[in-house]
């Protein structure tokens, strides 16, 4: 099966890792809001943050097949870490972001030890339980988190010492987009590696992987920690660009929303979370006039429709229309 020194899986990964024209076009398009819709840059930065959060969920759900109903725990943890550091007098954004990433990663690693041991309903319940537990803890510790009022007094310094986070969102969008792109590069590299293949093996048949000698629990711990880091970074971005942190960052609603976004876009294809975030956030912005309760009516209907008619999300549906050679990885 081998030709020369290059084996079949290696060749497969090499093909996969090459950048497609469609991908380059997509990232260039992401710069357009600076000129085309400058009044919507705040929304654009929110989209980038949500996309990063959805991307982190895609790593564990779309690739390793870990269904999590409590992913907001890491988002909120990163958010509170970044917010608290800024509140305590260190408002430098990039180091704050790094600190939040480390904190969320630690939390992710600790929980991943437990997560790796379970599957199916017990796993869903444990992730849900962790999310609720952390939200409850943050609510109780109001001396630290500000409780239901949210964290007040977060002041972020100028980005790189030059660009202030203002109401127009220039710095916010540039910052969020850069971080999203870097995280995307990392995720893209990860899933097009042998490690990424092992993750897909776990998703497809968890029992078989140990049988062929793969260290499934170790793989799950690794990817879960990485996903937690990315979620924490997304949370920290939200805290820094909005200069406030609310309990809602930890809530079940956020975990459910990000799941909806990812499913809407399509799981296991990296761009799914980003496309889902764009569609979801733009739609919510357009319909912001209507009562949020009725917004969830349409989201619910959409979910039912996607599961029944479009099992692979928007991207999966589009992929059927696009010729094979143009498809992004």
């Amino acid at each position, binding site marked *: 099966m081998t030709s020369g020194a290059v084996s079949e899986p290696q060749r497969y990964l090499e093909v996969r890792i090459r950048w497609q024209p469609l991908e380059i076009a997509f990232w260039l398009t992401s710069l357009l809001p600076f000129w085309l819709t400058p009044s919507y840059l705040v929304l654009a930065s929110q989209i980038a943050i949500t996309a990063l959060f959805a991307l982190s969920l895609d790593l564990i759900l779309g690739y390793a097949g870990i269904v999590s109903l409590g992913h907001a725990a890491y988002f909120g943890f990163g958010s509170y870490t970044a917010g608290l550091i800024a509140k305590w007098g260190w408002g430098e954004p990039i180091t704050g972001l790094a600190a939040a990433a480390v904190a969320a990663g630690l939390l992710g690693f600790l929980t991943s030890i437990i997560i790796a041991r379970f599957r199916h309903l017990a796993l869903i319940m*444990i992730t849900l339980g962790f999310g609720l537990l952390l939200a*409850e*803890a943050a609510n*109780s510790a109001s001396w630290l988190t500000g409780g239901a009022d949210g964290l007040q007094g977060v002041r972020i310094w100028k980005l790189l010492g030059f660009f202030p986070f203002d109401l127009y969102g220039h710095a916010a969008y540039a910052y969020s987009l850069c971080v999203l792109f870097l995280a995307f590069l990392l995720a893209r590299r990860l899933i097009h590696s042998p490690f990424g293949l092992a993750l897909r093996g776990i998703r497809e048949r968890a029992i078989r992987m140990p049988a062929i000698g793969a260290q499934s629990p170790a793989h799950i711990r690794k990817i879960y920690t990485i996903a937690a880091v990315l979620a924490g970074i997304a949370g920290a971005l939200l805290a820094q660009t909005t200069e406030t942190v609310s309990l809602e960052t930890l809530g079940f609603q956020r975990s459910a929303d990000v799941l*909806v976004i990812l499913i809407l876009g399509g799981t296991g294809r990296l761009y799914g979370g980003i496309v889902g975030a764009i569609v979801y956030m733009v739609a919510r912005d357009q319909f912001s006039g209507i009562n949020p*309760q009725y917004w969830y009516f349409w989201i619910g*209907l959409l*979910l039912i429709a996607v599961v029944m008619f479009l099992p692979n999300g928007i991207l999966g549906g589009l992929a059927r229309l696009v010729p094979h050679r143009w498809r992004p990885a």
Partner: protein
Amino acid sequence: MIASAVGVLFDGFAYGMLLFLLSVGLSVTLGMMNFVNLAHCSFAMLGGYVAVTLTNELRWPFLTTLPLAFLAAALVSVAFERLLYKRLYEASDLEQCLLTIGIVFVSVAAAAYLFGTVQQSVALPSYLRGTVAIAHQSFGVYRLFLIGVSLLITIGLIAALEYTRFGAQVRAAVDNQRMARGLGIDVGRVFATTFALGSGLAGLGGALAVEIVGLDHAFAFTYLVYVLIVVAVGGLGSIGGSFAAATVLGISDMAGKYYFPELGAFLIYFVMITLLMWRPAGLFGRR
């Protein structure tokens, strides 16, 4: 202190019985079909709104609304089962979760649209109100009624499962679906019937819950977590397990609220995670 402990135990037990009614159907259907039905509490909410509407708008006596709450939830759930759920039995956990969470979103929004976001209450007949004193300890009449109804249903369910032909078919389907099919049991039909029965019980639980915990449009979400905890801790497909888990959860939640109000729901989630880590298949689960 002792008096309050008895009171907490009693209230907790009544609350646990409520949780049992709400969750037993989900436990059996999950055990049988492995279908993660997160919309279970939407059917309970439907039962609650049926009872509220009939008593408050049409002036029906409360007790006569209970069978109708059961019927409405059972009928609607069967319609959903035949139209939507049936197609996803072979699908992954995730897709089932998503479909049913979609239904929860829709039902919550529909309830908010039809009934508003206010807390609903139900007019109880005079003989269910007030308290009775037994050995210097006063007990709420409605809670006694609730406990009585739940115990009757539990006994009825266990008897039906253990001693009837249909019960044997259900047990066979829970234990080994493929084998049951091989023996000529129409698992699809058995499942649909069980599903209707379980959702009907949830509807009844929803109607009975209005007096204890109130009813608003978010009911389907709020109690989903509790019901899932009962099911996951009790073990899938086990009526006894659900009963035990619901009792423990009801009493510990009530005790937590009474003795450590500052902890909030923290205690419940902590107990659930610890129990699941100790026994991932639940206390009485076999798988």
